[in-house]
């Protein structure tokens, strides 16, 4: 594999049919961090996502078949880990997560010595999503404000924990990943961030009742199976307004 500096920050963006949004997101990301390594994981898109991402200078991991959100995310994290990353920042390619908010996450990581920082935006949830979060919190014993946010920073220890084969049994990056991190003694912190509506496409999960029901059944079973005796209340980091 090609070598890159060991101190590198890798940005991992899973993308599925995001040709409309990905170019703008990558341009903004490049403006925020000109030296960061950007990895777009194309989850078997049918549109021009790959070409757009390549044109923006990103490393593109083209999947030959669709692995779902977590499978794609893990591929990007494996790639970053193999290159010797220091930390991985994950975000959506649909424009929901603002590159301008990354500093809040990295600042929280530096200040709290956390292994993982989650960018939380509780206002964004639809009624369906909020119902799902409440039930998931009750069943899992994990109290987080925004359970499904994919806007996160992982340090090297957390990345190493998540690129293993056991983590490939997971399908989503929410409860299973959080339970795995917390169960292995990782410090997970939340910080409030701004998010915006997606530029294009729709949520792969929260777009129809049958899909939500199937996702909830899977997640509830996972939450109960992975539940530990102790409750995990994620620490909330209040970002300084200077970074706004």
């Amino acid at each position: 594999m090609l070598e890159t500096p060991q101190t590198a920050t890798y940005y991992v963006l899973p993308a599925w049919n995001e040709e409309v949004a990905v170019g703008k997101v990558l341009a903004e990301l490049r403006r925020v961090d000109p030296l960061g390594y950007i990895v777009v994981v194309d989850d078997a898109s049918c549109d021009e996502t790959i070409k757009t991402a390549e044109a923006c200078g990103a490393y593109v991991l083209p999947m030959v078949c669709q692995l779902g959100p977590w499978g794609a995310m893990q591929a990007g994290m494996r790639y970053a880990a193999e290159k010797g990353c220091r930390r991985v920042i994950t975000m959506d390619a649909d424009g929901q997560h603002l590159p301008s908010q990354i500093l809040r996450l990295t600042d929280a990581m530096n200040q709290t010595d956390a292994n993982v920082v989650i960018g939380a935006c509780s206002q964004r949830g639809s009624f369906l999503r909020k119902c799902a979060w409440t039930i998931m919190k009750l069943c899992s014993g994990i109290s987080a404000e925004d359970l499904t946010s994919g806007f996160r920073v992982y340090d090297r220890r957390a990345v190493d924990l998540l690129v293993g084969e056991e983590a490939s049994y997971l399908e989503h990056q929410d409860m299973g990943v959080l339970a795995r991190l917390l169960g292995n003694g990782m410090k997970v912190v939340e910080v409030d961030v701004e998010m915006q509506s997606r530029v294009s496409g729709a949520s792969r999960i929260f777009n129809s009742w049958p899909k939500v029901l199937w996702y909830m059944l899977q997640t509830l079973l996972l939450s109960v199976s992975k539940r530990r005796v102790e409750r995990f209340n994620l620490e909330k980091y209040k970002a300084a307004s200077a970074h706004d």
Partner: protein
Amino acid sequence: MTELFTGATGLFVAATIVYLIKRDRLQVRHGVSWMFVAAMFALFGFAPSLLDRLAASLGVAYSPTVALVLGGSALIIKAVSSDVERSLSEVKITRIVQRLAMLEADIKRLEQYADQDRQESIDR
């Protein structure tokens, strides 16, 4: 007649398993558990008195119930173990697909470097 039918069914299942292994349609590790089921079929089929004794020792008045419960349980265990195997296979496929994508990204990057080198040497 019933004994003959049940026993013959067991033998037929066993023969089918052997045929599938011989034709490389079934891995031998999967065949072993099915051979066990076939053997039970044949054993209780040809010697139903064994089943009667087993039922009596378990306090079951109607002995075929024992056979049905055992058979049903065996099928459930086999189905669950098949899903465990399938999960493992799916994880392996996931890992391979991820690895393939990583290698493709590197190949593309190397090709770009090679193109740049070629262009630079032409320019010189």
